[in-house]
Each structure stands twice: as C-alpha cells, then as structure tokens.
C-alpha cells in the first residue's frame, strides 16, 4: 500500500470512560492534552481543531471545535465541528484528513467528548410530528435496544445463533478490557451472568446492551511530510476513512426509521449499507479483509459485533458464531475483535467513540496496548454506524 494520500497519526489520548458527572469540555481538554503530549507537538503548532459535536450540552456542544480551542487557549487555529451521530468522530477525523491532504493545514487536533444521561437515549423534549426520531417513540415505543434486538433475532432465526453465543461476546470483551485503563467496566462476566440479567428487548439481556458513558478521545494528525520533518519515525498512518451513505434502496431497517426503501423497482442490492461502509474503506486503502490483523467494531449489542464481523468480510454471512466459538476473535486468535473491550467495557460516549476506536488501533499498531496487545498487528480496521444513514470504517496501517 502506498503512503501517498495518507496522513500520520502523531499522537493519541483519552480521558477514561465513566459516569463522572463533570463538563464535557474538561474531558475533551484532558484527552487533547494527552494526545498533544503523546505527539510531542506543541499546541501552538496546531493549525486546525475539529470537534465532535455533542447534542446534550447546549451551545458549547454544538460548537465543540470552538469550545475545545478556546479551552486550550486561543492559538489562531482554524476550527470545524462535525456531527454524524455515532460516526461523528470518524467524520471529524475525515474533515481534518481532507484539509491536510489538500495541503491547507499541517497539524490537526481532533477531539470528541460527551456526558450522557442514564437509561434509554430519548429524543429532546417537545412535539415533533415530522421528526422520525420523535415518531418512533410516540407511535411505536421503539427504543435503540429494540432495533438492536431485531438484528439479533434475525441472526437466531436465520443462522441458528443462540443467547449463549451473544453472551460469549460479552464474556470475551469483558476479558479483553480488564487491563484497559480507559475502560469503564473492568470486570469479568460469565455466560450465566449475562443470561441472568433481565431481558430488555427479547432476545437481548441487559448485559448484551452497551451503556452510555462520559468520556473523551483525541488524535493529532499531521501530513506525512510534517511527521518526517519532526522526527516522528514510522508513524501509524490513516490509510482510509469511509463515511459513505446508503444507496437506494436501503433495505435493512435503520434507526430511527419506521420503514425501509422499497426494492420493487430495482431488486435487493448486492451490498447492505454496512457492507458498503467496509468495502469503501478497503477500496480506498487498496487492501482486502485478508490483510487485517485486528478490528474494533461497534458492539452496541453483543449480537451486532457478530454482524460487523461479517460486514467487514472477516467471514461469510452466518459464520461469525463459528469464529467466536473457535476463539478466532479473542486476543491470540486469528482475527481479534475489540481488544479494547469494545462498547461492552466502555459504554457509548457518542462523539468520542469513533475516535476512541482509532486511539486503540494506534496503540495496537505501535505495540503499546499493554495487557491487551494483538502481537505483530500492522493493519487495523474500525466499523461504526449511527442514525440517519451515518456510519464509518477507518483503516490504519503501519
């Protein structure tokens, strides 16, 4: 793979996930300073700040790029703010990457941070009969876990997946995250623990579903030339950022919609939206799934991790349970998935999460993921999906 059209990851940093009850700006600045320190680049040399927007923290959250830049002390850098639901962090990275690749900036700081309420994520207050996200609650009582449950049930009825398989994903990820200092939940789970937890939306139990968390993640991106000039040797590179949207007809029901497109005119497309996210990343990086050493995927539910493994073409549809049962997706296996512990150990901090995936893969590719290292990893891929046709897949290589 050629290193032209790539940018360097000069530094990464995070604030530990949890329920800290403090301002999102504080988490974001903590992560930003950690990433800057990791890069050895001074804040004064950053010429672009891209913030991941948070929709739960008022105006400061809507202009997150500005909020973080001001909190770090105005340095004259340009700013941008991205919002793409759960894919916010990847879109922020893509914005920074594009400006670097265009030669319009050399050093970009990308930061995402959030505070989240307890319980189901719900729409903002008010009556909005033209907002699908409001209507799905009012007319159907359709929560996010209910969508995850639809996908999980389909795996069971079509592929013979079991509740024990789903629980085994949690067991694996809980073990992976034990040594991760940024994970919120660092405790082993057993299959029995998961099955004994209450059913939220059949077939998913409480421990199959990720929590919502406070947290922050940041990366410092530079041009390859800048990295070379400043003695950053053999940096992890961003080989691809895929943020493609669905193509018509989108035939898999997607949050927060109440229906799919009709396939009557065109037939069922060859690839689902999630499959196309990964394919676009592979195409851009010029590699294939056989080149991947490690994956960080969006396990909003345990069953969704299995869907992603197939969407990333790490196995054929319906075979993810086979990989799981054989230990292939465990650290030490053929293709470890979620060595960080995944959302199972973190809980979701929306605008930070896709950046956190990139932080983890950076540590993995540098050989710095203490206690959870995938030995010899050179290529990593992320996968993530948000509401309203957002999603991302990022490929890092070294």
């Amino acid at each position: 793979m050629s290193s032209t059209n790539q940018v360097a990851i000069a530094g990464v940093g995070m604030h530990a996930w949890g329920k800290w009850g403090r301002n999102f700006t504080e988490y974001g600045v903590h992560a930003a300073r950690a990433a800057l320190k990791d890069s050895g680049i001074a804040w004064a040399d950053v010429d672009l700040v891209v913030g991941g927007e948070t929709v739960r923290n008022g105006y400061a959250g809507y202009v997150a790029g500005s909020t973080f830049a001001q909190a770090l002390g105005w340095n004259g850098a340009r700013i941008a703010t991205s919002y793409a639901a759960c894919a916010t962090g990847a879109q922020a990275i893509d914005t920074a990457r594009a400006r670097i690749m265009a030669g319009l900036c050399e050093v970009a700081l990308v930061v995402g941070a959030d505070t989240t309420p307890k319980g189901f994520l719900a729409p903002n207050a008010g009556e909005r009969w033209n907002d699908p996200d409001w209507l799905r609650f009012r007319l159907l009582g359709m929560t996010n876990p209910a969508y995850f449950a639809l996908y999980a049930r389909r795996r069971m009825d079509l592929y013979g997946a079991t509740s024990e398989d789903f629980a085994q994903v949690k067991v694996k990820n809980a073990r992976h995250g034990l040594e991760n200092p940024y994970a919120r939940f660092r405790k082993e789970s057993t299959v029995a623990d998961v099955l004994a937890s209450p059913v939220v939306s059949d077939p998913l139990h409480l421990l199959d579903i990720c929590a919502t968390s406070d947290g922050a993640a940041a990366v410092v991106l530079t041009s390859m030339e800048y990295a070379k000039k400043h003695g950053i040797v053999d940096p992890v590179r961003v080989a691809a950022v895929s943020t493609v949207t669905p193509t018509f007809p989108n035939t898999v029901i997607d949050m927060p919609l109440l229906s799919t497109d009709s396939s009557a005119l065109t037939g069922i497309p060859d690839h689902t939206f999630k499959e196309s996210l990964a394919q676009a990343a592979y195409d851009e990086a010029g590699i294939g799934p056989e080149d991947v050493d490690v994956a960080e995927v969006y396990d909003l539910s345990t069953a969704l991790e299995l869907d992603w493994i197939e969407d990333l073409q790490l196995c054929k549809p319906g075979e993810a349970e086979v990989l799981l049962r054989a230990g292939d997706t465990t650290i030490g296996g053929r293709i470890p998935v979620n060595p960080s512990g995944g959302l199972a150990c973190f809980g979701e901090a929306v605008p930070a999460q896709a950046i956190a995936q990139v932080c983890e893969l950076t540590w993995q590719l540098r050989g710095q993921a203490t206690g959870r290292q995938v030995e010899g990893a050179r290529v990593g891929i992320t996968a993530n999906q948000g509401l309203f046709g957002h999603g991302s897949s990022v490929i890092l290589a070294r």
Partner: protein
Amino acid sequence: MTATPVIDGWFTTGDEPHLLASRCTTCRNVVFPPVSSDAGAAAFYCRNPACDGEAHESVELSRRGTVWSYTDAQYQPPAPYVPASDPYQPFALAAVELPEGLVVLGQVADGFGVADLKVGAEVELVIETLHADESGERTTYRWKPVSA
C-alpha cells in the same frame, strides 16, 4: 368519545384496514410513511435517485406480509411514548416485509408476544387502541399473527 387515529393519513380503518403509502406518479416508487401535510411534509420529492418525480398518489399497501424480525419492549420506553396502562404492560414489535418491497415496523396486536412470531411468518394489519388522551382513544396500526 370516539376513537381517532393517532396520526392522520397513515392507515385506513374498518374491517379490512390498510396502510397508506405515497407512490411516485413517474416511477411508481412507493414510500411509507406517506407524504403528509400534518407531518410537515406537504411536498413530494421522489426518493428514487434515478427519478425527479414531484407528484404522488395515495395507494393502499397489502394487508398481509411476512415477518422480517421481531422483538418486544419489556421496560417502559421513555417519553414521548405514552404508556397505555399503569402499571406498564410490555408489548411486542415486528418489522414486516410487504409485497410492495418495503419493510414496515409496527407494534404487534394485543395478546400476542415474541413466542407467537417467527422470521418469515405471515402477519396481517389490524387497527387497535394505542392509548387514550384528552380527545378519547387514539388508534394505530398493528401486526397480528395469522394463525395457520
């Protein structure tokens, strides 16, 4: 007080109710929910990217379809969901594939749960009470398993 649909223009009532969809008069692509001025979308722009149609007609969707997947809500969903009873009673949900080529999410009829459903099983549209408010009972569409 009489029962009224919780939302206008999405379904017909009576013995053989149907969901209402908007069909492009140019390419015949069908969308649900339908274009509705009540829902703040009076204008129609065809969502088929190969079509620039701007006129639509209302069509009834098939009353029967097959289950794409299903689940339930064991805990009371947050507002703006309005619980039908106190204490809360869990209900089931189904995504149903219709012959018109689209999948439509709905609640499952009263008295039926996930044990009554299977991917690929046949279901039929019924109209039932969703909840009551100051104007009386509000009705909605639901999917009811068709017994073999």
